[in-house]
């Protein structure tokens, strides 16, 4: 009964606060849209210089995927490289080709090299060698970076915004004295925690449904598995964000101090969420991963959205997420002892 009253109050507050409501729903949509445009833009077209390459070879080259300029000697090409007119040039040193790159941007480097590889590789095999046929267990050759990052980012935004909103509203409850007032009523501490969980939980279901629906059906983020599973994962992730946010807020005295926890508690989770390959992270740091909720949520989201896995593959991740929430809830109950002993 008291839990329902608190749940209702939190929803009323959210509905009154149109601006925050808008932030929670439209900010993730805006950022996801921008990321979609950033990652799914056109491929980079490398600008390649050719020095003293025989006409016969140049004619064979497929010019659609690169801008090719021919130079008569290497110093000319070098000048062009310094001026930024080409990203790299290729020169035949007594028969064997050598490549010289501008080199300051890794993305440009690899685009240039891969173009040179594919172009000259084909030629050396006489142009009619058997193509290596590639099949995919998961994903496809059309899969872009956005499809791979997407599930992680979806999880991250839900986590980030719920963490902030829950933390800040609990801090407000403390600084305005309403927490004290709440505690002067016969409400139990677990009822306060549960009221918050249900209030924000209901809101989060709506929020993550909208965001996931938008990412998948409007932006066309890769989605092989079941939408219900995606919702279940984001909901459990939001629950950890909520309970962690409230817990962290008891170590902050005002809203600004809550914001200060973002680089410590929220941002590092991105590094272990699979956005970067976990195996290449330094051993000094990689052990942190299994202690962050986003690690499990991102893994489960990618299992469902990219690999099309179902309940059987994700349930362990879900149980761990639930475990995080339960631990945080328990600690919240203890943290509230600071304000009332019973």
């Amino acid at each position, binding site marked *: *009964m*008291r839990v*329902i*009253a*608190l749940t*209702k*109050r939190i929803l*009323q*507050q959210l509905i*009154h*606060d149109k601006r925050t409501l808008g932030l929670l729903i439209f900010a993730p949509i805006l950022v996801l849209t921008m990321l979609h445009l950033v990652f799914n833009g056109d491929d980079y077209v490398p600008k390649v210089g050719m020095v003293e390459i025989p006409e016969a070879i140049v004619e064979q080259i497929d010019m659609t995927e690169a801008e090719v300029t021919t130079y008569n000697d290497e110093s000319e090409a070098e000048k062009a490289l310094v001026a930024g007119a080409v990203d790299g040039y290729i020169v035949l040193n007594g028969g064997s080709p050598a490549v010289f790159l501008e080199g300051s941007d890794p993305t440009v480097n690899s685009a240039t090299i891969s173009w040179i590889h594919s172009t000259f590789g084909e030629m050396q095999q006489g142009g009619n060698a058997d193509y290596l046929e590639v099949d995919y267990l998961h994903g496809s050759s059309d899969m872009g970076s956005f499809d791979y990052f997407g599930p992680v980012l979806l999880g991250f935004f839900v986590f980030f915004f719920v963490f902030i909103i829950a933390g800040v509203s609990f801090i407000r409850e403390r600084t*305005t*004295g*309403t927490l*004290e*007032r*709440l*505690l*002067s*009523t*016969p*409400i*139990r501490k677990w009822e306060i925690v549960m009221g918050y969980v249900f209030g924000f939980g209901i809101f989060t279901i709506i929020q993550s449904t909208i965001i996931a629906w938008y990412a998948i059906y409007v932006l066309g983020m890769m989605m092989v598995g079941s939408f219900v599973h995606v919702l279940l994962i984001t909901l459990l992730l939001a629950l950890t964000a909520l309970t962690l946010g409230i817990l962290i807020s008891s170590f902050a005295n005002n809203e600004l101090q809550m914001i200060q926890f973002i680089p410590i508690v929220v941002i590092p989770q991105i590094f272990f969420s699979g956005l970067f390959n976990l195996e290449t992270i330094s051993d000094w740091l990689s052990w942190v991963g299994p202690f962050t909720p986003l690690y499990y949520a991102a893994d489960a989201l990618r299992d469902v959205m990219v690999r099309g896995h179902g309940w059987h593959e994700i349930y362990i991740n879900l149980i761990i997420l639930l475990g995080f929430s339960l631990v945080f809830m328990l600690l919240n109950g203890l943290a509230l002892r600071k*304000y*009332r*002993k*019973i």
Partner: protein
Amino acid sequence: MMSNRMSWISIQHVYKQFGKQEVLKDINLEIKEGEIFGLLGPSGAGKSTLVKELAGLDVPTSGENLIFGEKMPSLKLMKRIGYMAQADALYEDLSANENLHFFASLYGLKGKIKKARISEVMQIVDLSGHLNKLVSNYSGGMKRRLSLAIALLHEPEMLILDEPTVGIDPVLRKSIWEAFYNLNRNGTTIIITTHVMDEAEKCDRLGLMRDGELIAVGTPEALKNETKTGSIEQAFLVYGGA
């Protein structure tokens, strides 16, 4: 006559320490059923700490507080107490009505009874016309009165009010005190903290507090007679050793 009544609050050898600072030093006090009891003292005297303990929000470092004969803090006892803190403690982004509904539900009021109580308490504090306004649009005095209305919702047998009339103009203060007297006539015991001397005169009995100690207890008249002074302020100075 008053001495025959039940002792509703019994504070026994209560000490409170925050770190090394002693905020309450050996407080002993009995407050009887149906009294309006005032705790008077400057800010920092320990009044708020003491009433917080009575409201169940804090516990003494040593000693105990008995309310209705039982030891505080207890959720069962908290149902019978209405507490109004120094801060207004309202949800500013909600309407007065939503605030009242929320707190009423916490005390287990529902349906028709809840609605009836809400309109009753809003009448007592003279805010009936502002029920659906957002609290953020309320003036300071209106917030104070709404805060009081919330404390009255569940018809508590005992009201604990921490500086209830701070920042309220004299006319309004008078009407709030009339509300206190009305409640008191119907049997509500009221404990009130204040640092305003003339307000203290309105209480049945007073406890003077200074530096965490209860330096004198008695009716306003008795305190003045005992010190042979004409006002509570002068009496306070005598007890304070000035």
